[in-house]
């Protein structure tokens, strides 16, 4: 299972709902950690950690939708990226809410 690295204020998350017959409706949302306070960042990190065991390498098969989480961060003085795919039927409501409304509960 992938691990979530420590995320500083320079981290960004691109969150989109992908796949399916209507794949054009992905509505990607860019989340810049700098725009959130420390408590909110902690909540987002907690949410992302909670998603780690829900990911699947077979997401999307047969037009099933999934949430794609692209975390961009800086580690050891270089840019890095972590990509996760969470099948729609496993997606936590908090993740859907973050994608749909941009809200951290």
């Amino acid at each position, binding site marked *: 299972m992938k691990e979530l690295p420590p995320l500083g204020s320079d981290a960004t998350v691109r969150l989109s709902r*992908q796949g399916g017959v209507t794949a054009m409706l992905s509505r990607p949302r860019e989340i810049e950690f700098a725009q959130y306070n420390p408590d909110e960042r902690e909540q987002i990190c907690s949410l992302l950690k909670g998603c780690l065991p829900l990911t699947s390498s077979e997401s999307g098969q047969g037009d099933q939708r999934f949430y794609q989480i692209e975390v961009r961060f800086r580690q050891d003085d270089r840019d890095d990226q972590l990509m996760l795919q969470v099948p729609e*039927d496993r*997606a936590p409501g908090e993740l859907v809410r973050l994608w749909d409304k941009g809200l951290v509960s």
Partner: protein
Amino acid sequence: MPRQGPYPGFIPPYILHRLIDHGSEWQRSRALNTLTHVRQLLPNPGLASVMGAAAENTAPGTLQRHIYDAQHLTVLPGALKRVEGQRASGDAAVDEAYDALGATHDFFWQVYGRDSIDNRGLALAGTVHYGEGYDNAFWNGAQMVFGDGDGEVFQRFTRSLDVVAHELAHGITESEAGLVYRNQSGALNESVSDVFGILTKQYVLKQAAEQADWLIGADLLTDKIKGKGLRSMSHPGTAYDDPVLGKDPQPAHMRDFVVTQDDNGGVHLNSGIPNRAFYLAAIALGGSAWVQAGQIWYDTLCDKRLDNDADFHAFATLTVEHARERFGIAQGKAVQKAWAGVGVDLA
């Protein structure tokens, strides 16, 4: 497969989805009550027992359908509404799913001698009214699922026969080549579903290749949307151009191949390339597209030499071989020329 057991660490999403959609405490309470009610009153026999029993006791080619109603929840398969031989339910989505699955089964059996998804008479299960305003249809490895659409952009997904057939064809691909749903093999997986989806429609309408619209999902868009359908197989990239949906991004040629991390490497985008190759082949071969072009694509899909991570070139090579073997040298050349027309050069 339908998900079993608890969702680790989180409130179940099928409840939260409704919360997000509706927001109020009353609706939250209602959703929870409804879910509990459904679970208490409708203990589900499970797809495996229903479908397995049907498959064991029927002659080859016998159609067995089970249509369920998710009642706007996202629990599968839902409440059983119509089984084989029962009269129309009066629910448009239930009856459209029943008819479309029947037409697709009939197409594969009559034209290619294929007995359902697994070629062993697997009973067909479909669930309608999935979720609230759900904008999708899918195959989950065990059954087909159809949303009602949001009503603003998309109408219910059972309206388009080719979309229902597209989802069933995902099951066939899974049981044959098992094309990996990523990058070029994923685009082929999508394209194969479009091919057999459109062929099912043309077969039912008795249309020759030259007469057909070659549109996937022509009945799905509401009249508020500027578009003809989800995808155009004849002219990928021209299905819609709308303020809400944007412009159809499908490429029609390898020079426009989309390299992306999204959509599993653009499986719903780059499928436009093999889709147009099929269209060009069907037009060149003439007549009913399912007779020669469709047979060639079907032979290729069932060819054990087709690797599950095949790229366009590998798939195209096999289509040319099958065209020559089954129909002759001229047909092989026509198929090769069709692939060259989209930038897949086999020379």
